[in-house]
């Protein structure tokens, strides 16, 4: 079933607020990764606030859905979602990257709600695969989501997992590529061309869906589609824009991991509809 227009609008509003909160946190510590946090916003928000069967009141439930943020540098957007779900205190965003904080620069599973440490690229999909294999052995209905960056696809280890997940027929595994076409040093075309991305995943044996990664309704339909495939994993190649929502950040590699000056923060918040 498709998501109602009302629910999509609610999630869009959450995304707007999350973007502002993430930019404020990254600005406050003058360190972090704004670009990739903004591009993955709808993907994470839809999964955490709508799709996944998880609860902060029952965090160890063996049948909970799992998410591995393979592109761990988007941690601030993950944390903002976990706060919304009640896994972390509301005021914890202000502690991002600070000493003694639960909010590490890259995710740690010692943080409530985080299932797997991430940061080094290339190994998250394998870990998500292991979860999917384990859940299958346990007869659990839970699903596993792996969120990859497109720059991350440079890592050869990603393709090791791309080869093995179809071998084990992991229909309970959905990978989502945050395809924003920009990595740290430049565009993906400049740094390492990805070429026929859909064709590559298809050749490895995946069910491949392409959609607009900022369209909640389209993303939702893609996730529903994935659930209907019984014999193979699904990858959703989600077309996104790095720095989405802030004009001067959009599509700019420079904003991959750059501190935000005061004036730029004010402009960004204004463009995102203001701090209501």
């Amino acid at each position, binding site marked *: 079933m498709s998501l109602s227009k009302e629910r999509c609008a609610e999630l869009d509003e959450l995304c707007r607020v999350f973007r502002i909160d993430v930019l404020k946190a990254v600005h406050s510590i003058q360190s972090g990764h704004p670009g990739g946090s903004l591009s993955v916003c709808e993907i994470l928000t839809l999964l955490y606030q709508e799709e996944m069967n998880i609860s902060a009141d029952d965090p160890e439930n063996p049948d909970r859905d799992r998410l591995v943020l393979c592109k761990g540098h988007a941690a601030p957007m993950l944390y903002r979602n976990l706060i919304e779900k009640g896994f972390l205190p509301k005021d914890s965003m202000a502690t991002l990257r600070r000493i003694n904080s639960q909010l590490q620069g890259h995710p740690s599973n*010692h943080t409530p709600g985080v299932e797997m*440490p991430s940061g*080094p690229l290339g190994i998250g999909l394998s*870990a998500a*695969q*292991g*979860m999917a294999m384990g*859940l299958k052995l346990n007869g659990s209905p839970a699903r596993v989501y792996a969120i990859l960056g497109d720059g991350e696809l440079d890592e050869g280890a990603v393709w090791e997992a791309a080869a093995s997940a179809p071998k084990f027929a992991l229909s309970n595994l959905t990978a989502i590529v945050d395809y924003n076409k920009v990595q740290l040093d430049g565009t993906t075309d400049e740094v390492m061309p990805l070429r026929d991305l859909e064709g590559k995943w298809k050749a490895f044996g995946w069910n491949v869906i392409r959609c607009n990664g900022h369209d909640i309704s389209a993303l939702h339909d893609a996730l529903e589609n994935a659930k209907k495939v019984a014999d193979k994993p699904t990858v959703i190649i989600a077309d996104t824009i790095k720095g989405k929502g802030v004009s001067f950040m959009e599509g700019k590699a420079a904003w991959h991991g750059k501190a935000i000056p005061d004036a730029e923060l004010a402009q960004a918040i204004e463009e995102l509809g203001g701090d209501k």
Partner: protein
Amino acid sequence: MSKAIREVYGTVLAELAEKNKDIVVLDADLSGSTKSAIFGKAHPERFFNMGIAESNMVATAAGLATTGHIPFVNTFTVFLTTLGLISTRAQVCYGNLNVKFGGAYCGMSDAFDGSSHHATEDIAVMRSLPNMTVLVPSDAASTRWATGFAVEKQGPVYLRLSRDVYPDLYDENTSFECGKGAVVRDGSDVTVIACGLLVHKAIEAAEIMAAKGVSVRVVDMYSVKPIDKELILKCAAETGAIVTAEEHNIYGGLGGAVSEVLAWGGAGVPTEYVGIQDTFTESGPYKELLAKYGVDANGVVAGIEKVLVRKKK
């Protein structure tokens, strides 16, 4: 009696899995060599061949561990502790996940394949990782214990296993303990602290030295991390000289671990290091390699003689 260590490991793992349904085993296309195939034959539904993809294998095990399973990952020691290292560090150890590492061909035990297939830095690598336990069995009984211990212990455990056949050292009823070493031969002039194959070589060396009137104590330090500080300091105090012996680079392995304890304890006594002398190795018959690189009984004898000269000064 003597048994191939890899064979004992594979057999014990398959036996333990009869009772413990959480055990799962992964291999990287070397199950016939690592002997994880013994498990695979007995429990095919819990055996996963990951192909020649060590990084994928270890990271998959990290995921499996979060769903209540106890994954054992297996391949040649050198590939496990290099190609598999990123996940070992960033997921398994950082996350303190319940993954067990079977490093099948330690030291130069894959002799003819040459340096590319020898593991001479794995102890250094694995013991530098927080949360990791490092065990080096020296015979069938200690391999049986270490494998069972790995199942029971919560958190990552590294088993340094050999392709080789080791003579029996302990009877089946021996009790072992993580964090402890065992005095396998008593002596008063010098202590050789060894692990794995070199425990046997040290015992041979002790016999050679006995004929020369030197009393050598031999310690099997099967638990390299955590290490038996108390025993090391006691040996330093009682014998006044230490020789470490391992089939590993002299840097960062057992020798390094023992030296850290001696320095920490303010117990500095003359110490010599028997091991691969910070060099790459080569192809050849195993015995000849051990002799050439000084990690046999003669190598240990040489270490003892050197340390005794320094002890007298």
